[in-house]
């Protein structure tokens, strides 16, 4: 049974380039400042988490999410500050620790690390790694990170990472250490790994129906039991767009999400998105698109189905205007979230 009082709601952005009303694109710098403004808005609305992605491509403005989160930290009070995700495989675990420990200090304990293998591949050659080592890189770096966050001197024999002898890392954090999630795309091995380390899990559901993840949650619980690790409420991350009017929401989302997916598909080799595919995703799949009532119904269904502790809506895909993005955040905070809680409370009673 979903515990409505403890449910968390997040917003995540990949730092897509923002458009002006006339369609002209803002610069990356302007787009980054827009995210800070949106983080401030989300905090005022009581949204629990803001997540910022890491990408190394022309269509996204943010390659250093912790810097953006640091700016958001300085203008917010409550909201948790997450990366969505930190591509650990092509990063240096010591640096990851250092950046998040700094953010933790700046924000008085609101930093949240989300580690993933990343679904994009640009960061591998950029930082001198070979994609063929994809799994080994993540495994080794996750192990090193897990030792670093104990905040004690570490001795480490690395293959892809530096070897250390009784080395301490700084700054130390003031709170309960770094809160860490593992982002998972649907590989059974990944969910077992997260359970084995005892990290929290966030499922990236970016295509298809949430229903197919039901057995994965079972796998997570069984794996945690096997390794004698705690089971945390699971989080989900999916794309969406909300507008006052249903048709407007669908058309804005169709134009922008399609443009975004097709542009990525061009470099990754997949076919352009068809309208049938998009409609399937918005009706019963992984795109939460529509007016507040429609989106609330669909989010509530997913939370109930997967017994989630948290739902993060990915916003801003494609080139939306600042007004569209801000209105979406307002509707999410003032209408969708309260309505989701209401629906789920009703079901709890019934």
């Amino acid at each position: 049974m979903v515990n409505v009082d403890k449910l968390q709601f997040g917003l995540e952005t990949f730092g897509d380039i923002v458009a002006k009303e006339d369609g002209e694109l803002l610069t990356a710098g302007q787009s980054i400042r827009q995210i800070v403004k949106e983080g401030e808005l989300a905090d005022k609305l009581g949204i629990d988490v803001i997540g910022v992605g890491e990408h190394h491509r022309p269509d996204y403005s943010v390659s250093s999410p912790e810097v953006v989160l640091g700016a958001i930290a300085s203008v917010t009070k409550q909201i948790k500050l997450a990366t969505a995700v930190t591509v650990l495989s092509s990063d240096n675990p010591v640096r990851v620790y250092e950046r998040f420990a700094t953010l933790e200090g700046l924000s008085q304990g609101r930093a949240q690390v989300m580690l993933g293998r990343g679904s994009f591949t640009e960061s591998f050659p950029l930082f001198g790694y070979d994609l063929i080592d994809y799994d080994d890189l993540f495994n080794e770096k996750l192990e090193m990170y897990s030792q670093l966050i104990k905040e004690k001197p570490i001795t480490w024999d690395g293959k892809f990472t530096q070897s250390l002898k009784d080395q301490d890392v700084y700054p130390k954090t003031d709170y309960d250490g770094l809160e860490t999630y593992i982002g998972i795309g649907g590989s059974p091995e990944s969910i077992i790994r997260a359970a084995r380390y005892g990290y929290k899990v966030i499922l990236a559901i970016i295509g298809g129906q949430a229903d197919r993840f039901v057995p994965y949650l079972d796998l997570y619980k069984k794996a945690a039991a096997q390794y004698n690790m705690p089971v945390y409420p699971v989080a989900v991350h999916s794309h969406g767009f909300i507008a006052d009017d249903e048709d407007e929401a669908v058309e804005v989302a169709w134009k922008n999400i399609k443009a975004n997916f097709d542009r990525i598909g061009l470099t990754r080799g997949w076919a352009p998105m068809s309208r049938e595919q998009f409609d399937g995703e918005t009706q019963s799949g992984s795109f939460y698109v529509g007016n507040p009532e429609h989106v609330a119904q669909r989010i509530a269904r997913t939370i109930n189905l997967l017994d989630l502790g948290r739902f993060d809506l990915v916003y801003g895909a494609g080139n939306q205007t600042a007004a569209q993005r801000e209105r979406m955040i307002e509707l999410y905070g003032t209408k969708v979230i309260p309505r989701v809680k209401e629906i789920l409370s009703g079901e709890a009673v019934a």
Partner: protein
Amino acid sequence: MSEIKTVGIIGAGKVGIVLAQLALAAGYHVRISGSGSVQKIALTISTLAPGATPATNQGVVSKSDLIILAIPLSRYKNIPAKLLKGKLVIDAMNYWWETDGIREEVLDPSSTSSEQVQQYFNKSTIVKTFNHMGYHNLQEEAKAAGEANRKALFVTGDNHEAVDQVAQFVNTMGFDTVRHYRLADGIMTEPGSELFGASLTQPDLQNVIDHFDETEFGQKIKAEKGA
């Protein structure tokens, strides 16, 4: 060729698991192996594909009438060629730079991935299919024959009889088919083509395949061949 009763799947990742689920639903016995020990995938298989038997590669191959390769292309040479000797084998792999890296060790640029898989497993019969539809579409779109909006898969290989038998198998797994009798045509559905990641009905798939040479990707492949 012998009747297909037991399906052996090499690869227990996203695609391998979905194919195991579909094969179980279609009434086949299923054996499946992962990259690590049998123990390592036991929990995954019993939870996600209950009824399938986790096994070693050898255990999968020796007791199966049909083998499906559902591993990253960069790893097929980890399987000894003689292990698959005499077997009917579905190649569900592609050359995808995302998972395989950009390198000539994985793929000689002068021929297609399935031709090279066939060359390596030279005593096996390779048929390419299950390679172009997304794994969650495979899971969600599988339908009984004759149902409305049933989707189709491209099935191609050099051996007529094998292609026909695999097409029949694909049909039992929940999909219509478009058949070609030329393994090299597998390129028509690889990453970069209009069909990679697309879920189409039989007439739509047929149409794209028939006009492959007119697509941007088709033009590119043609130009590379000519060069």
